């Protein structure tokens, strides 16, 4: 009998170009996504060494981190402008397809990959960005790399990688109404910490994962990196196949049928063994809110900040509370906010926007709150507008923007001011992430929408309009 294998092992074995005792494996890379911030030095390195891009056809670039989300014709920031021009020049010189700021395919790199069907099961995918793990939702092995590695992949279409350990995060049961994929992944990280995935690739399994939409799966895989994992993925199934059918870069007809068959075979075999397994009960997950300065510092919305007498890392918790301007044992429901950001590669897809819109429909954003919605891609934005979501948001008092990373990392003008407090659907609540001195609380799109209306955190399940 053939040894049962995990999808991680299957993908790995198909991509080893060279192996040698005592060394990492040389792994072939099927898709290399490139953006403006982590690539200029890599192209420069190639030029200095007279090297060429080996497979421009397997490389795809876009602009997302720096781009303005309004008034695109005037980029005030000269340095950002230069970075974008550099990417354009590098792509032209090397024959790489680029979805620049005015291209209908533009968007956050982890949103457009799946939308365009570039992301497919079984592929090895890299990008100079840690949230590349997002693409794992399709059963791809996708991970973030540094700029030296970007240069390496450009030059050789391969990467030296140590064989990862495998970790099964098994999610039983089902999520309640108003409890989302975002709450699930936040609850997992709150429970097991920001390091439990280190050195591992996570496969998410179980009934609750199967029941998630592809968008929800992307949200979960997106935040695998916040658990320290090298990548996170989910075995493909019919949902995966259906999602990809008809996408721009996915073959049609017979070729598709054949491909889909190969995808199905990738799924982890019954009885395959992981290096480690963790189990979570989805029924117990409540809407989550982070209170601190890393994604593991989260509690249910009904909870409170920890007491200093309850924690091990007293100094760390004290620092986090101080930075966040919160007291120990302070109820989450007592925290007022002044900013809401709905966007980022975690939660800026059409279904996220739909669910948030359902909450705010016919209501008004609290007078103390500035709220913005930044769709993940140009095409998401277009689709949302077709469905009238922009009108719902605007009538409620939200700003409706162009696609980009925006306030997730505040490299453009979308910044939370010092001391400002933001309910954000992004993935990182590090000090200064959304602006120097800014305080970030990570939540689901539904929770962010409800907070925008109330001006403070409330349990979205008490709100009318919660979509399942």
């Amino acid at each position, binding site marked *: 009998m053939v040894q049962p294998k995990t999808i991680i092992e299957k993908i790995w074995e198909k991509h080893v170009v060279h192996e040698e005792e*005592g060394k990492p494996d040389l792994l072939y890379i099927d898709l290399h996504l490139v953006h403006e*911030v982590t690539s200029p030095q890599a192209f420069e390195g190639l030029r200095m*060494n007279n090297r060429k891009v080996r497979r421009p056809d397997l490389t795809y670039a876009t602009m997302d981190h720096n781009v303005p989300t309004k008034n695109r014709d005037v980029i005030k920031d000269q340095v950002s402008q*230069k970075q974008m021009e*550099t990417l354009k020049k590098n792509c032209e010189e090397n024959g790489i397809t680029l979805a620049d700021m005015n291209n209908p395919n533009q968007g956050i790199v982890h949103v457009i990959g799946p939308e365009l069907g570039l992301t497919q099961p079984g592929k090895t995918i890299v990008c100079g960005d840690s949230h590349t793990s997002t693409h794992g939702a399709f059963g791809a092995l996708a991970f973030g790399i540094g700029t030296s590695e970007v240069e390496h992949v450009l030059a*050789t279409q391969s990467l*030296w990688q140590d064989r990862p350990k495998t970790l099964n995060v098994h999610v039983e049961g089902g999520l309640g109404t108003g409890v989302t994929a975002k709450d699930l992944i936040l609850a997992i990280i709150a429970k097991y910490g920001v390091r439990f995935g280190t050195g591992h690739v996570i496969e998410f399994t179980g009934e609750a994962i199967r029941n998630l939409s592809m968008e929800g799966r992307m949200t979960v895989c997106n935040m695998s990196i916040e658990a*320290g994992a090298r990548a996170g993925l989910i075995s493909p199934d019919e949902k995966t196949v259906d999602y990809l059918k008809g996408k721009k870069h996915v073959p049609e007809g017979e070729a598709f049928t054949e491909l889909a068959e190969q995808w199905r075979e990738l799924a982890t075999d019954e009885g395959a063994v992981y290096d480690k397994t963790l189990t979570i009960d989805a029924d117990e997950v409540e809407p989550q809110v982070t209170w601190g300065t890393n994604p593991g510092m989260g509690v249910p919305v009904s909870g409170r900040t920890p007491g200093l007498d309850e924690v091990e890392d007293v100094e760390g918790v004290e620092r986090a509370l101080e930075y966040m301007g919160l007291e120990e044992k302070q109820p989450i429901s007592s925290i007022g906010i002044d900013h809401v950001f709905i966007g980022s590669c975690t939660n800026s897809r059409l279904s996220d926007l739909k669910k948030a819109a359902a909450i705010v429909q016919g209501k008004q954003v609290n007078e103390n709150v500035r709220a913005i919605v930044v769709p993940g891609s140009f095409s998401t934005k277009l689709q949302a507008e077709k469905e009238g979501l922009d009108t719902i948001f605007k009538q409620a008092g939200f700003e409706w923007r162009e696609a980009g990373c925006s306030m997730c990392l505040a490299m453009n003008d979308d910044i939370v001011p010092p001391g400002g407090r933001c309910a954000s659907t992004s993935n*990182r609540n590090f000090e200064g992430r959304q602006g120097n001195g800014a305080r970030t609380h990570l939540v689901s799109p539904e929770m962010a929408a409800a907070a925008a209306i109330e001006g403070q955190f409330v349990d979205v399940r008490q709100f009318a309009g919660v979509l399942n």
Partner: protein
Amino acid sequence: MEAIQEHTGLVYPLNRTNVDTDQIIPKQFLKRIERSGFGQFLFYHWRFDDDGNQRADFGLNNPKYENATILLAGENFGCGSSREHAPWALLDYGFRVIIAPSFADIFYNNALKNGIIPIQMDQEQLDKWMEQAEHSTLTLTVDLENQTVKNTEQQAVHFDIPAYHKEKLLNGWDEIALTLQHEDKIEEYENV
């Protein structure tokens, strides 16, 4: 990449866990298109206040650590974004060695690619050095060939580093050139 065999230097103790790359180098400084010049922005919001003045309460601003080249830190150093600007900033500032109980995976790789030695050390040993570096000063010598860290009393502590990475650091090898020695295999893979 500059080869590194042995390094002796002054220690700066950063007694914090989960130091993320947003702290090592904040995003507003990621817009340069060169690899150089990031050192001035290292730990920017910890070193400087909103008006750009040095914060007296941040250790690295203490003159006694001015020439530090070895960084001690808490668990999970370098977590967060994949930005290689983080090791560039550390290197440009003068750090050649980072010692911590654990590192985030991407950061660990990024450090190695830039000739920084990331040394994983057990918490107990680290605490001792941390205390010494905080209360007086501490100079350590890292011998990569023999995989030891020594203090001035010559007590040597062993550390682990994968042989493959060690060899590259010792020789300052260009990884792309190494890989291109296998170009025939890459081609073969592509043609199947």
